[in-house]
């Protein structure tokens, strides 16, 4: 199951990121440089685990920086 950037951006809104910030996110750029903070990041990880039934182990999670990274991770975890 491919995960789209649009779906992930909608999830950013779901965790409370302002709509204008979420919609403007460059999927290839680091999220921390695009207005996400220390609460948004864990909230996004927690929602991603729940929504896609994937397990972000601590080591893998540290390497995920952009929406593209997250999409690729979910894609490979879902096989």
């Amino acid at each position, binding site marked *: 199951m491919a995960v789209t950037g649009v779906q992930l951006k909608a999830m950013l*809104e*779901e*965790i*409370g990121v302002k709509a204008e910030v979420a919609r403007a996110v460059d999927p290839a750029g*680091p999220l*921390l*440089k695009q207005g996400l*903070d*220390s*609460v948004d*990041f*864990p*909230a996004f*990880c*927690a*929602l991603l685990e729940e929504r896609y039934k994937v397990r*972000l*182990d*601590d*080591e893998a*999670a*540290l390497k*995920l*920086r952009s929406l593209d990274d997250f999409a690729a991770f979910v894609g490979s975890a879902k096989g």
Partner: protein
Amino acid sequence: MPQPENVAAQLLARNLARCPDKAAYLCGDDTLTHRALAADSARFANLLRARGVGPGARVVLVLPDSFAYPKAFLGAMLLGAVPVPVSAMLAPADYAFILADCAATALVTWEDSPAAEGARGVPETEVVLFCGLDGPWGLSAQPTEFEPVLISDDAAAEASDGAPGFMLYSSGSTGRPKGVPHAQADLLGPAKPWGSDILGVTTGDVLFSASKMSFAYGLMSSLTLPLFFGATGVLFPGKPGPYELFEAITRHRPSLFFCVPTLYNLMLRAFEPGAPGFDLSSLRLCYSAGEALPLVLCQEWLRQTGVEILDGIGSTEAFNLFLSNCRGRVRCGASGEAVPGFEARLVADGADGGDEASPEVPDGTPGNLLIRGPGLARAYWNRPEKTAETMLANGWLATGDVYVREHGVYTHQGRSDDMLKVGAHWVSPVQVEDALRQHPAVAECAVAALRVEGLLRPCAHVVLKDTTQGLGQDQAKLGAEIIRHARGLLPIYMCPVRVEFHTDLPKTPTGKIQRFRLRSA
């Protein structure tokens, strides 16, 4: 009998004699020498006295980390007044509570800060001094000579009725912060065991703490250590995000970096080895405290940066680190061993912690951590019940942390109460729940820990007034709305990262919510 000494005067005089023209602090493009710090601290004491502040008076400091901070802290201390550093992230009502609680005579803050707003409703706080990053207006007009006021240790020890040397505020489980008074001499407590034995600080070190000076960890690493060792501290006034921290390290080239797990996590996510602005070559050691450092984060930081992180635990009550890892023998995932000078005991629930005849739990079994050592606060400020619960007989202090010990190494298991440590800040579920209940859709709620990437975050467990709401898409929308609502009312670290909807919450037979059943740690 030892002569009473003014600790601020002692620190300043020693550096004035050994390294007057060396940088005491770096901040942005500016340098403050030890000579200038001594002069401006004396000026600050004169300014406070001119405004009617005297020995024993509480002087609340709500400032960004900047040159003004050590000047104000040491100036108040020279005068025998009681500096009370308070976080700059609070709301006006919180400041009003703290100012009234400690009956502060003076507030030192920036113009139009929320603290200044809070002070308007507190009649005791007659003096409000507005500061820029360098100090308050009119400071340079004050004389640089000041005869330090001597406070005897005995007077300082009588924390509840006498005048303490300084005081910090720590969040309470009811959401009301409690004052933690310390004797002046306690300011130097962390220098020997932690600074010397654990960190090996020397005069050549440059220390940079991402944790602010209003927290015990930040005050120890940005005030006690640089001044005790005649070293240099880096002060960063802004909000420390991962990119800003890398930039400050690249620019000021610290040798020791003090940070918290939440920020180490974000820094690793932002790290671009070899790229401009990510130069960590000056660091010889990193330290982590404030919340337990996850095993993987500890290992990955070392792997990616080549710099060891020592994890440890301390508290506002101890004004010291009492368990710590040591250089060269780091046990990732553990808080380490008892720091020299401290004793630690692990006791079962319900055991009388002050009774030394009560047995410890065996190795490998979780127990409540009690500590004993020099410089522990002897009482909370005007909170006799809380004091009785925490400051036990025979000098033991109940930390509220649950640990397992194996071969002298302690590993954190959680808390014995409902308090959460999030991003190194104490979070009382009560305060978050009060904010959530103000949302019109929320009937009942409880806040408990959710573990994400090895770190604890607040999770809101909510029962809706209209139980047909909160289904499917509506549920996602409502969850986001509740989180946004919380963000409007609470400091960011208190905001839930997730909302889970329930039809009811687990309760005791008497109707008390059992938050521990909602933890997913």
